[in-house]
């Protein structure tokens, strides 16, 4: 155990933790939204994220980068980022809707048990990973350096770079928009209504199937934006990239109280920070051990997670 690094590089670890947390949060929200309306853990959601990273990669590939170029000027980067970011959001969103129709809707219509849906989710996840392994050759795909990672300014031993700022600010904007969607639109009202009481929503004239599709779409779009940030920050992807981040995002959602949007957000940032601090103090390979010990502890003490399962009361 070595606390000296935590003390000397606290802010560097914190900034990186926030960046990691922001990316986890964008994935985590997909788990939580779907659980909110369907009471189903969509285990294939991590693959929706993976599809987003692949989309970013393929869009950028079209521009013929070799990876040896200098980073782009800011305005060019902004244009390209918006292009691949929105492409990833659209593709991930559509993929999530297709997933819902193919893997879950039929089971739901037939009144199958939750367990069947869960197995279907895991099957869909394996299917997508294997398909993309074939397509991508199962290799690490290298994303070119598009934005300069030179230090903008130094703060308490932490180097602040453009990519980190982009992830934190970009994610904050998306969280704000999500909050508006959930609380100030008809769609948001529908999502909250279905998550509160599905039968009553039907009686009130809510088209539940449509709301569920939109929820998957929303989760997919968020994961798509998350994948764009991920690619800018980590600059690499592969067919099973979703596995680790999926586990982190799912853990964050459960930690905060699955089904609760606010919980998923706080859970994600807590997890991101916690993983960085644990890595510094105990060693990198301990971070997952400690994370899961805390998760089990939280579930033992407060099974509904830190903020409880309540999408309808959610505040972003």
């Amino acid at each position: 155990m070595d606390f000296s690094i935590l003390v000397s590089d606290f802010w560097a670890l914190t900034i990186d933790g926030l960046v990691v947390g922001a990316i986890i949060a964008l994935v985590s929200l997909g788990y939580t939204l779907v659980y909110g309306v369907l009471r189903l853990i969509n285990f294939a959601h991590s693959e929706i994220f993976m599809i987003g990273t692949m989309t970013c990669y393929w869009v950028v590939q079209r521009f013929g980068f070799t990876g040896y170029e200098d980073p782009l000027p800011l305005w060019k980067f902004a244009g390209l980022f918006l292009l691949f970011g929105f492409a990833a959001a659209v593709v991930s969103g559509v993929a999530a809707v297709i997933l819902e129709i193919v893997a879950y809707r039929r089971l739901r219509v037939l009144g199958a048990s939750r367990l069947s849906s869960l197995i279907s989710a895991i099957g869909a996840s394996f299917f997508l990973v294997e398909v993309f392994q074939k397509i991508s050759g199962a290799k690490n795909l290298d994303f070119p350096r598009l934005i300069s990672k030179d230090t903008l300014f130094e703060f308490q031993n932490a180097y602040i770079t453009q990519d980190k700022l982009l992830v934190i600010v970009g994610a904050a904007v998306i969280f704000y928009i999500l909050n508006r969607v959930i609380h100030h639109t008809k769609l948001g009202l529908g999502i909250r209504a279905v998550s509160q009481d599905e039968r009553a929503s039907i009686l009130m004239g809510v088209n539940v199937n449509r709301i569920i599709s939109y929820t998957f779409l929303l989760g997919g779009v968020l994961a798509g934006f998350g994948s764009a940030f991920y690619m800018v920050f980590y600059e690499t992807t592969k067919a099973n990239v979703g596995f680790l981040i999926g586990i982190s995002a799912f853990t964050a959602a459960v930690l905060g109280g699955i089904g609760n949007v606010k919980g998923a957000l706080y859970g994600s940032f807590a997890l991101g920070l916690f993983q960085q601090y644990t890595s510094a103090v105990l060693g990198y390979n301990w971070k997952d051990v400690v994370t899961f010990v805390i998760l089990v502890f939280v579930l033992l003490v407060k099974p509904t997670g830190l903020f409880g399962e309540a999408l309808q009361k959610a505040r972003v």
Partner: protein
Amino acid sequence: MKKIISIVSASALAVGLTVAVTPSAFAACGGNPVIYFQGAQTGAYQETGINEANGVILAIDKYNATNPAVKVDYKVIDTQASGTQSPALAKKVVDDECAIGVVGGMYSGETINAMPIYEGGKVPVISPSATNPALSNKSAYFHRVVANDFVQGPELAKIALRVSKRLFIVDDATPYGNGLAKIVASNAPKIVVGSDKVTEGTTNFTSVVAKVKAKKATAVFYGGYYPEAAIFIKALRDNPATKNVKFIAGDGVLDGEFIKLAKKNAEGAYLTAPGQPMAKVAPALEKEYKKKFKREVGLYTLEAYNAAYVFLQGIKAGKTTRESLNTWLADATVKAVGQTISFSSTGDPFKLYMNEYTIKNGKMVWVGSLL
């Protein structure tokens, strides 16, 4: 009657002998003996695996082109370099009655886990690139054509002592990576300022870089393979405090794919390998390889070629059963390409090589021999 019996037994003996020395020994399998390659053909580590598999294919094709009495077929088991997948795939080899030997495994972990299965099936194995010392003396059926990490580790430590006074050690917790890291640490204890462990598939190295920075290390040793090493070296170069830290690693990192993934960040890395520079020791074969496969040779292409070559010499000498081939390997001395190969009782080669490489202008460059 006695005469008849002796005629019958003589004929039976003759048939038996014919069976033992001609291709019909493989009547049970209904074809030619098969040399298998064990390694990654897909997945993150496929580059090294394809470079090795091509070496084996080249050796077999060249051998078959000489119209030998016994032709040899080639098959591959794609382990994706995973120690969890290799035992089940090794079982397939054992069950294949035509299988006579295995070139592989490519990495140490997958080889360690597959060896008990091969031993059970009495299949001789020659690895072109598994360097973990735990494999020495592990089985009478295991051989390798490269020096192990008890040779590589101290040489890496010498490089670390040469270029730095403060060394930070990181490994990927695999048998190879962790094993090599321990040997390096024990050979340069005075300069080690800290260590950390990551896992295979790690993409977030920020906390490791923070430690390298906090410990004011001037060099980093990474025990592991190229996919993670590429991400790690990028993360080091991106941080102003660690961008000049020297990067030292073993043969798991020395691969064309490391340069492809790390790009200019890979420049100047200090790398070692028991593999020989093919362009230098076997230029004609290198040319032949490039013409046939339309791609560059990789580290261990030559070693894989030579491992297959050793088997082929055994088959040429009439050793067409697993057991006889394995017995033959114990005493054989084969003059392969750029290397004379004979195995000690531990399965390690008698003649050892260790080379230093670096990356210059996007190319793997041989620096010199370390032994």
